[in-house]
């Protein structure tokens, strides 16, 4: 029987950029939400830096409950004036983010380091 898993890795706080990054791997559904949702929301609510970065490269599925916690993180980051970035979502996750309109709302980049680079001039 298929059994999805979700792993949340919290990277050390980057004091140089005042950035908190974390990484999701696996599938973010109801089970994933029960497993790491509280830990992630706790990380979000305690965050007070300049960048909140979520690396999605190893995330292969996300449903509305997973999207919900990303929105909570985005809301908190914007409320305190921080920048919120999503990094390297795979095509399925990106489709869902685009369908829901979240993709156009948040910053996104190809790497964590790239989040700190100034945007290219038009």
């Amino acid at each position, binding site marked *: 029987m*298929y059994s999805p898993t979700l792993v949340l890795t919290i990277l050390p706080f980057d004091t140089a950029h005042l950035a908190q990054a974390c990484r999701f791997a696996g599938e973010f*559904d109801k089970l994933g939400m029960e497993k790491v949702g509280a830990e992630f929301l706790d990380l979000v609510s305690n965050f007070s830096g300049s960048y909140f970065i979520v690396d999605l490269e190893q995330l292969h*599925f996300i449903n509305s409950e997973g999207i*919900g916690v990303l*929105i909570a993180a985005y809301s908190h980051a914007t409320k305190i004036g921080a920048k919120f970035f999503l990094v390297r979502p795979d095509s399925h996750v990106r489709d869902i983010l685009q*369908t829901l*309109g979240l993709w*156009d*709302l948040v910053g996104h980049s190809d790497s964590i380091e790239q989040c700190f680079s100034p945007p290219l001039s038009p």
Partner: protein
Amino acid sequence: MNFFRRNFGIKIFTLLSGVGLSLGLVLIFLRIRYELQFLTLEFVAYGIVFFVLLAYFVFWFSVSRPLREIIHEMEALLTGREYKKFFSKRIDEIGVMAHFFNEITRKLHTFAGSVSEGQNMANELEVAARIQKNILPARPSTVPGLVVSAMSRPAARVGGDSFDFIENDGKLYFYIGDATGHGVPAGLIMTMVNALVRAFVRVSSSLVTILADVNRVLKSRIEKTLFMSLVLLRFDSSSGSLSFAGAGHEHILFYRAATGQCDIIPAGGIALGMIPEIGTLVKEQVVDFAEGDMLFLYTDGITEARNSQGELYGLERLKVAISKFASQYPPQPTLTKIAADVGSFVAGVQQTDDMTLIAVQRTSASSDASQFQFSTDWRET
């Protein structure tokens, strides 16, 4: 102290019996050996009887009586009569039995409370499910030129999927929505959005304005992690035009009768409840809807239905099923066939999300109300 408390009754009984028996034997020996006349056989016999009786009373008070009391309380418990706790500080078998009895009765009380609370919650959920079912339309408004069918199946008692058909000023407004997750929180959002859409349709005919107003009210009243995707459509029966505005919902699928193809049109926009103002992100679009065409609205419970290998049903399978069945059947049997296709794919694997499918077919404007087919029941035949 523990020496006396542990196996007290048995020890005293054994001690007294032993002392009585030994004393009797010693006295008999003394009488025979030293011919002590005052130690008559009657004296010895009375002594033994005295010690045996003393041992019996000690046994009765310390073992037999408390054991009988515990058994009496147990009988009362098992036969449904009133029973009381048994207090004992002893740590022998009687103490263990008393402690066991008290623990069992305490857990029974807790369990009975949980059962009662669970029953109350189940009753409340049943009421919520009934209210929600009543919110979903029993049948759509009778707008000439459309044949409508809908099917919905919540994953839990209360679901987060929603749809409605609202007729106003000669136009039919209809929507499908999907609140975060499922269960009671999703059901409450679904109920709120249903009431808001119904109210704002009476205020404005602009789909963007309706969605922006619904979002504004919703955002201020729900948690940060909750939202609802939705696509709202408006069919004008006099002109035959169909418009839509999306709020982060799944694509709209059109079966084109002329070509037999299934077109995908992204709903666009941003889900309700994500940000305070969505007016600039939502766009109203007009889409072709020719006679014979059939449009399909669905929630992600369909495309994200999984089989035992973890594979998703997906948009491609849905498109194939639509192209296959919409060319042969009117809306209701088409939905039943698609539901059966999804059911066959998941092959009995329990699904965790609500599923809703809506099919709307454009027919000639002279069609009468008898052509409307509508059911909110999920059937897989």
